[in-house]
C-alpha cells in the first residue's frame, strides 16, 4: 500500500491533479476572501510542485518506464499515459518553475492589489501547469492534442491578464493566431503518424524508418508545429510581445517551461525514427544557428527589459536545437559519442535555461516593480536600492552567458564537445561541426555583450530618471524562489556529476541504439571532476583576492569623489552611457538583419542649436517586414472567400452539418 502510494506514477498524477485544482480556492469566494484564497492556492501549488518534482526524480533515478491505460476509451482508440525518463526530465521544469512562480506571485500579484484579475490568473495558472504535465505524459495523439490545446488556451488567458491595455490585447491575439497555426500543424502530424504506424498510440522508439518520403513529411510538419511553440526563428513572431506583456512570473513560466514543451514534442517525434538522413540533422542545426545568432542580435537592439529577455529565449532555444542537430548528425554518421554528447547537452540546456531564464524574468519583475518602468534606458543604479535582487540577477546573467562556474557553461561545454567530436570525422559531419562551433562562440560573445549592457545599465551607475514609485527591495516571497533558482544554477555548474546519470538515462530513452553499442558512458566523456575542481579553484581564488584587497584597502588612505570626466565636476545622470549607445556598434554591424529605424526631430547646426531629438528602435523584422506584408497581400487577393465568414454561429453549425453529410456520402462512393 505504502509502495503504491509513493510510486512515481501516483506522485506525478496527484501533483498534476493538485495543480489543476490549485486555483479553485480563489473561485469559492463565499468561504474565503481573496487574500486567504491566494495563500491557500499557493500552498496547493507548492505541494504539487514538491510532489511532482519528487516523482520525476524517482523515475529518473530508477530509469523505469511506467505505462497506464485508461479504462474508458476515446472514439479514436485506447487512451494511454506514461512516464519514462524523457517525460520525467521535462517534468522537472514543468513542476519546479510554476512552484517558484506561484510563491513569487504572492507579493508580485497580491490579491489585495489586483482584486479584478487574481482569480482568473490563479485559476488558469494551475490549469496551465497541469496541462503542461499532461502534454508530457500523453502517449497517444488524441490526449496529447487535448492537453496541448488546454495549455495553449490557458496560456492565452494568462498573457492577456491585463487586456485593457492595447499592447497586451494585441500580444494575446498574435499569440492566439500563432498557437492555433501550430495546432493545425499537429492536426496534420498525428494522422500522418497514424498512416505510418497504424495506430493513434505513439509508436515505440526507433520503430519507424526515417528514409521514406512520408517520414520526411512527418519531420517537416513536426518541425513546424513544435518549432512554432518553441519559438525557433523564423517562427518566433508571437514570442517577444507575449513574453514582454504577460506578468513577469507568467513570462518566467512561459519562457522557462512552455517553450520547452515544444522542444519535448520534437524530441518525442524524433525518437520514433531510426536511420535518420543527414539533412534532418543539418536542418535542425542550421535552424539552431540562425535562431541563436539572430535571437541574440535582436536582443542587443531591444530597450525593453522583458522583450530583451524574450529574444534571449529564442537564442537559447537555438542552442538547444544545435545540440539536437549534433545528436542527429551523430545518428546518421554512426557516432555514438556525438549522439550522447549532443543529446545530453540539449537536454541539460533545457533544464538550465528553465532555471536561469525564470530567475532572470523574476528578477526583471522585481526591478520593474521597484522602478515602475520596463525601459532599460530609464533605469540605473538599482544595485544600491535592491541589492539582493541585483546579486541574484547577476548570477542569472553570468549563467545565461554560459560562463563558468555556473550551469550554462556545463551544457554548452557538452555541445561544444559534440562539435569537436564531429570535426574528427569525415564529410558532412565535420563541415557542419566546424562551422557550427564558431557560431556558438559568436553567440556566447554577443550574449556577454548583451548581458553586460542589461546589468550595467539597469543595476549599475546612477538612476537615469526619477520615478514616482518608491524604490524598495522585493519581499521574501519574491526573493526565495529566485534564491532557489540561483542555487540550482550554481549547483549544476559546480557539481555536474549530480545530473549526469539522469541525463544518460534520458538520452538512452530517446536513442535506444546507445544502449546496444558499447560506447563510453557520459561520465568518461565529460571532464566532470575537472569542471568541479576548476570551478572551486576559481571561486577560492576570487575569494582570496577579495580578502587580500579588503585588507590592503583597510591600511591605506581611501577617499570618494565624483567619477572622472576630464575634470568636469558636475556629472549628471543623463550623461551616462545608455543601453542604446552601448549596443550601437553591434546593432550597426547587424543592421542588415535588424533593420534599425531611426527617428530624428530637429537638426543640430549652429553653435547654440535648438532642441533636437533622436530615437532608434529595432522592430520585429520578421513579423513586420515578412509576414504582415505577405498576409496583407493574401488578404486582398482572397477577399472573396471571406463572405463565408459571416460571424453567425448558426451558419457555422450548418457548415459542420454540410461537411459531415459530404463526408458520409463520400465514404459510400
Amino acid at each position, binding site marked *: 500500500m505504502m509502495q503504491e502510494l509513493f510510486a512515481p506514477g501516483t506522485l506525478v498524477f496527484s501533483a498534476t491533479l493538485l495543480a489543476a485544482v490549485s486555483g479553485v480556492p480563489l473561485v469559492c469566494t463565499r468561504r474565503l476572501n481573496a487574500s486567504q484564497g491566494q495563500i491557500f492556492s499557493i500552498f496547493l501549488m507548492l505541494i504539487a510542485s514538491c510532489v511532482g518534482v519528487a516523482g520525476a526524480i524517482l523515475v529518473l533515478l530508477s530509469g523505469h518506464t511506467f505505462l497506464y491505460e485508461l479504462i474508458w476509451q476515446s472514439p479514436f482508440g485506447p487512451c494511454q499515459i506514461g512516464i519514462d525518463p524523457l517525460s520525467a526530465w521535462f517534468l522537472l521544469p514543468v513542476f519546479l518553475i510554476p512552484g517558484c512562480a506561484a510563491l513569487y506571485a504572492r507579493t508580485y500579484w497580491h490579491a489585495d492589489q489586483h482584486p479584478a484579475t487574481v482569480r482568473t490568473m490563479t485559476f488558469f495558472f494551475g490549469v496551465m501547469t497541469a496541462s503542461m504535465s499532461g502534454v508530457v505524459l500523453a502517449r497517444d495523439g488524441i490526449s496529447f492534442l487535448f492537453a496541448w490545446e488546454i495549455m495553449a488556451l490557458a496560456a492565452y488567458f494568462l498573457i492577456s491578464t491585463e487586456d485593457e491595455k492595447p499592447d497586451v490585447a494585441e500580444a494575446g491575439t498574435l499569440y492566439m493566431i500563432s498557437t492555433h497555426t501550430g495546432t493545425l500543424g499537429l492536426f496534420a502530424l498525428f494522422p500522418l503518424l497514424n498512416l505510418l504506424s497504424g495506430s493513434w498510440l505513439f509508436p515505440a522508439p526507433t520503430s519507424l524508418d526515417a528514409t521514406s518520403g512520408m517520414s520526411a513529411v512527418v519531420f517537416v510538419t513536426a518541425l513546424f508545429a513544435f518549432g512554432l511553440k518553441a519559438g525557433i526563428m523564423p517562427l518566433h513572431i508571437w514570442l517577444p510581445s507575449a513574453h514582454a506583456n504577460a506578468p513577469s512570473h507568467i513570462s518566467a513560466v512561459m519562457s522557462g517551461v512552455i517553450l520547452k514543451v515544444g522542444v519535448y514534442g520534437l524530441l518525442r517525434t524524433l525518437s520514433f525514427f531510426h536511420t535518420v538522413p543527414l539533412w534532418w540533422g543539418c536542418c535542425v542545426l542550421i535552424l539552431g544557428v540562425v535562431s541563436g545568432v539572430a535571437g541574440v542580435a535582436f536582443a542587443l537592439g531591444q530597450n525593453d527589459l522583458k522583450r530583451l529577455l524574450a529574444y534571449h529565449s529564442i537564442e537559447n532555444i537555438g542552442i538547444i536545437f544545435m545540440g539536437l542537430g549534433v545528436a542527429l548528425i551523430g545518428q546518421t554518421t554512426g557516432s555514438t559519442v556525438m549522439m550522447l554528447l549532443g543529446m545530453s547537452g540539449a537536454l541539460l540546456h533545457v533544464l538550465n535555461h528553465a532555471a536561469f531564464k525564470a530567475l532572470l524574468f523574476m528578477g526583471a519583475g522585481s526591478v520593474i516593480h521597484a522602478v515602475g518602468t520596463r525601459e532599460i534606458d530609464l533605469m540605473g543604479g538599482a544595485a544600491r536600492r535592491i541589492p539582493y535582487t541585483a546579486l541574484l540577477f547577476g548570477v542569472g546573467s553570468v549563467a545565461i552567458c554560459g560562463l563558468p562556474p555556473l550551469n550554462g557553461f556545463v551544457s554548452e561545454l557538452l555541445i561544444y564537445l559534440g562539435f569537436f567530436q564531429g570535426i574528427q570525422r569525415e564529410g558532412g559531419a565535420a563541415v557542419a561541426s566546424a562551422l557550427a562551433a564558431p557560431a556558438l562562440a559568436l553567440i556566447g560573445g554577443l550574449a556577454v555583450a548583451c548581458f553586460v549592457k542589461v546589468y*550595467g545599465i539597469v543595476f549599475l551607475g546612477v538612476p537615469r530618471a526619477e520615478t514616482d514609485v518608491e524604490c524598495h527591495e522585493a519581499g521574501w516571497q519574491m526573493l526565495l524562489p529566485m534564491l532557489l533558482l540561483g542555487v540550482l544554477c550554481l549547483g549544476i555548474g559546480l557539481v555536474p556529476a549530480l545530473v549526469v546519470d539522469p541525463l544518460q538515462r534520458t538520452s538512452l530513452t530517446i536513442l535506444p541504439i546507445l544502449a546496444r553499442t558499447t560506447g563510453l558512458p557520459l561520465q568518461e566523456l565529460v*571532464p566532470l571532476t575537472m569542471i568541479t575542481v576548476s570551478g572551486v579553484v576559481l571561486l577560492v581564488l576570487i575569494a582570496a583576492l577579495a580578502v587580500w584587497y579588503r585588507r590592503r584597502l583597510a591600511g591605506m588612505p581611501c577617499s570618494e569623489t565624483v567619477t572622472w570626466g576630464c575634470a568636469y565636476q558636475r556629472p549628471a545622470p543623463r550623461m551616462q552611457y545608455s543601453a542604446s549607445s552601448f549596443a550601437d556598434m553591434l546593432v550597426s554591424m547587424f543592421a542588415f538583419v535588424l533593420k534599425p529605424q531611426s527617428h530624428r526631430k530637429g537638426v543640430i547646426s549652429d553653435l547654440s542649436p535648438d532642441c533636437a531629438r533622436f530615437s532608434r528602435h529595432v522592430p520585429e523584422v520578421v513579423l513586420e517586414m515578412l509576414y504582415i506584408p505577405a498576409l496583407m497581400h493574401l488578404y486582398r487577393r482572397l477577399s472573396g472567400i471571406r463572405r463565408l465568414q459571416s460571424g453567425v454561429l448558426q451558419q457555422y453549425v450548418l457548415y459542420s452539418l454540410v461537411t459531415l453529410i459530404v463526408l458520409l456520402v463520400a465514404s459510400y462512393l
Partner: protein
Amino acid sequence: MLNSIIHIFLALVMPPLLLGIIGKTKAAFAGRVGAPFLQPYYDLFRLLQKGSVFSTTTSWVFRAGPIVALATTAIAALLVPFGAHTPPISFDGDMILYAYLFALGRFFTMAAALDTGSSFEGMGSAREATFSCLAEPTLFFALITLSRLSGSFSLSSMLINISFGVWLSNGAALILLVGGMFIVLLAENCRIPFDDPNTHLELTMIHEVMVLDHSGPAFALIQYAAALKLFVLGAFFVHLALPYATGNAALDWALFIISMLELAVVIGVVESAMARLRMVRIPQLLVAATILAAFSTLLVIR
C-alpha cells in the same frame, strides 16, 4: 611536479618583463634610451603602496572587476602549456574553459566600467564588447584546426602536437592560422594597431578607458592581469609560430623563455612600425582574421 612549479613561477614572475621589452624596443626605434626593462615591476610595486580613490556612484561590482579579471586570467594561465611541457591542469574540453574564462573576466571588467556611470568608460566597454565578439570565432576556428590536426580535445596536446613536421605537411593551414591568431593576440591585448596603451586621449582608448577610475592596488591588479593575459595568449601563439622542442626539459624551458622574449620584440617592432587604425577599420581587420582562420579550418577538414 618540478615542471608545474616552474610553470607557476614563470606565470607569476615573467609577464611584466614582456611589457618592459616591448617598451624598450619601441624606445630603440624612436632613438630614445627608454625606461629600464624592469619598469613595469616598479610601477606595480608603487601602485600597491598607494591609497585608493573611489567614485561615489560605484558599488561592489566596481571592486570585483579587477579581482575577477585577475583570477580568471590566472586559471587560464594554468591551462596553456608553456613550451613543450604539459601544464598543471589539462583535461578533455579545457579549451572551452580557456576561452570562456577570458569571457568571464571581460564580463566583470566591462560591468565595473559601467558602474562608474561615466560615458568614457561606457564607450570603452561597448568597444571591448564589440571587438571581443569578433575575435571569439577566430579563436574557435583555430581550436578546431588544431583539434583536427592533433586528433585530441585538450589544449595541451593540441598545442604540443604542433612541430616542424606538422608545418611541413600542413604549412598552408598553419600560416593562415598564425596570421589570424597574431591579429587576435594584438587585438585582445590592446596593442597597436588596435589600441594604444600609452595614448592620452580618452576618446580613442579601448581598454585603458574602461579602467580610468581604478586606482591604487586595484589598478595594480588590472595592470598585472593585462600583462598575464599577454603572456598567456603569447604562449598560445608561440606554439603555433615557433614550435621548438628538443626533448630535454631544461633546454625546452630556456627555448620557451627565449621565444617569449622574441615575441615581445616582434610586438615592439609592429608597434613601432605601424600607426593606429581608425576605429571603424578595427572590425574589418578582425573579420579578416576570422576569415583567415576559417580558411585554415577548411584546408584541414576538406
